[in-house]
């Protein structure tokens, strides 16, 4: 099948649907008409789109955890705790890693072993195995809206089951849930899988059910320069909009430098809207999400709180529409519900203390935004060129050509030539710009920034700097200085 950035026609979609639904027995539970009728009964305050739009209008930042355990009742207890004791505004259901790779038998084994051992043996909620009914037990038991959060290259069945199961938001995209989450899945394939997901969401939209979609912003979570994650988010937003998605939250993982982070979120919002306007998607509502630090965390809980709180501060100062929250257990393992709720309460406190203090102006902020936007434009324009005007083809060819390149990614379809490192103020820059289609001026900018740091540290530019930066936050600082 030929990939192109064109809205799928309905017959084609329905033909694909047979295959998607038959991947696991629970697929048979999905009946689109019944699902739409079910979704229509979910009240506004339990819908993602409503809550996000309210927050957008009020300039508020909502808080959302990550959480998922293998068994239904335990999962309901967990999410209930997070909304009660954690004051979460929005809820997640994090999917386990076997389901993410469509290994439903392994997921089943995980469910059984969890039942037997009384311990969670999966790192998330296996929604496909629990089926539509299991999902509805979860979504109906809670006050807040619930989103599916995962990392699934082929999420067609997962999306079918969870939307029918009453979830009102679905995370992911053909790039962001491939390159950081898979080793050997061709980009062409995931873009098609995700056109399916977006077309399905579009169908719900056509039938009056608005579902939020959220490209996964942080990618590998490790020193990803803003221009890379913003370019990916905008590409996925454009692809989604073409299939009929009307409500999109573009995301970004905190890098750690305040000015760069605020600039990145601002640039992301502005450029997403600008590309939407330019390509005629004028009725899509855009919101933003900031992910608290996504790289390695300090093991000490007090220090982990510090990382969490600083991420919260950045989210509030940038006026992101929502913030995804980490827990003080991050470095060690999937958090207990108490630790997860503690991370949320700390976040809520910071968000509320900073609710009325956005950082909107400032010369350095403007400069940083200009840099990020110029870089992002370079990448996107070149992708469009390579795709001969087609964003989907441009994405595939862009990754092949290394003009989009995600650091530390496991996928063999990623060039892996760029190398990020922090500058002397902790902003993430490029020690090696690889094949990114930057102007000479932009390349020189990065070179100068890294050179400045090397000089300050009295050492040469080397991979050791990158390693030091990867460990830095877990060792208690932002820039990985020598000794």
């Amino acid at each position: 099948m030929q990939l192109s950035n064109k809205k799928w026609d309905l017959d084609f979609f329905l033909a694909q649907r047979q295959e998607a639904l038959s991947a696991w027995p629970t697929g048979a539970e999905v009946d689109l008409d019944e699902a739409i009728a079910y979704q229509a009964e979910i009240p506004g305050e339990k819908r993602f789109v409503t809550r996000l739009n309210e927050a957008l209008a009020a300039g508020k930042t909502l808080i959302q955890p990550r959480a998922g355990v293998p068994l239904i009742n335990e999962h309901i207890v967990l999410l209930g705790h997070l909304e009660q004791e954690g004051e979460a505004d929005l809820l997640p259901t994090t999917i386990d890693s076997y389901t993410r790779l469509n290994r439903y038998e392994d997921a089943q084994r995980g469910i059984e072993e969890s039942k037997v051992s009384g311990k969670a043996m999966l790192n998330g909620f296996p929604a496909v195995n629990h089926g539509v009914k299991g999902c509805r037990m979860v979504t109906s038991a809670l006050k807040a809206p619930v989103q599916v959060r995962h990392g699934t290259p082929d999420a067609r069945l997962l999306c079918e089951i969870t939307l029918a199961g009453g979830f009102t938001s679905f995370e992911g995209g053909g790039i962001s849930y491939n390159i950081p989450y898979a080793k050997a899945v061709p980009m062409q394939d995931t873009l098609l899988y995700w056109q399916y997901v977006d077309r399905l969401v579009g169908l719900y939209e056509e039938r009056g059910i608005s579902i939020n979609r959220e490209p996964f912003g942080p990618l590998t979570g490790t020193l990803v320069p803003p221009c890379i994650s913003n370019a990916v988010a905008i590409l996925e937003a454009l692809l989604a909009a073409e299939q009929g998605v009307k409500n999109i939250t573009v995301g970004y993982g905190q890098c750690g430098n305040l000015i760069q982070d605020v600039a990145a979120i601002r640039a992301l919002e502005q450029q997403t809207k600008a590309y939407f306007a330019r390509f005629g998607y004028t009725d899509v509502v855009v919101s933003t999400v900031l992910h608290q630090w996504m790289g390695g965390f300090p093991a000490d809980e007090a220090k982990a709180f510090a990382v969490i709180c600083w991420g919260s501060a950045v989210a509030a100062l940038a006026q992101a529409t929502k913030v995804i929250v980490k827990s003080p257990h991050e470095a060690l393992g999937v958090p207990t519900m108490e630790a997860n709720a503690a991370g949320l309460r700390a976040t809520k406190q910071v968000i509320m203390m900073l609710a009325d203090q956005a950082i909107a102006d400032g010369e350095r902020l403007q400069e940083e935004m200009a840099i990020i936007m110029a870089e992002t434009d370079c990448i996107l324009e070149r992708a469009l060129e390579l795709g001969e005007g087609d964003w989907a083809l441009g994405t595939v060819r862009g990754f092949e050509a290394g003009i989009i390149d995600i650091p530390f990614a496991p996928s063999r379809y990623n060039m892996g030539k760029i190398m990020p490192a922090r500058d002397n103020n902790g902003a993430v820059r490029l020690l090696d710009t690889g094949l990114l289609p930057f102007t000479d001026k932009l390349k020189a900018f990065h070179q100068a920034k890294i050179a400045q740091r090397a000089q300050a540290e009295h050492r040469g530019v080397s991979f050791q700097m990158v390693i030091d930066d990867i460990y830095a936050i877990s060792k208690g600082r932002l820039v990985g200085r020598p000794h």
Partner: protein
Amino acid sequence: MQKTLVLGVIGADVHAVGNQILNYAFTDAGFHVVNLGVMVSQEEFIEAAIESAADAIIVSSLYGHGELDCQGLRDKCDEAGLKGILLYVGGNIVVGKQPFEEVRQRFLDMGFDRVFGPGTPPEAGIAALREDLADR
């Protein structure tokens, strides 16, 4: 003589950062590293160990399914003729924050020679390898 290590992240696990650093650090410490990257099956570990006549298999697991993914690896090694090959495991090898001594025991019982907890620096692994491989 230079010792050979087979390195990889087991199961459906895609955490690639630590693996890249371990590869760099073990190589830097003088080992010959056969790095299989992420999402490595038990079979792939064993095949690579046979092919490279490896002295040790270094398994990482970060995402929590380590306990499921590692079951039976020692037996499979034995069956494949890798009797007594050094088996290490490290990372966030179980789901959640669990008392590490219990976790270590469970993995020792599964046949691993050494078990390393969350955030162990590469240096600890290198020191252990030097000790365990000294007389081999």
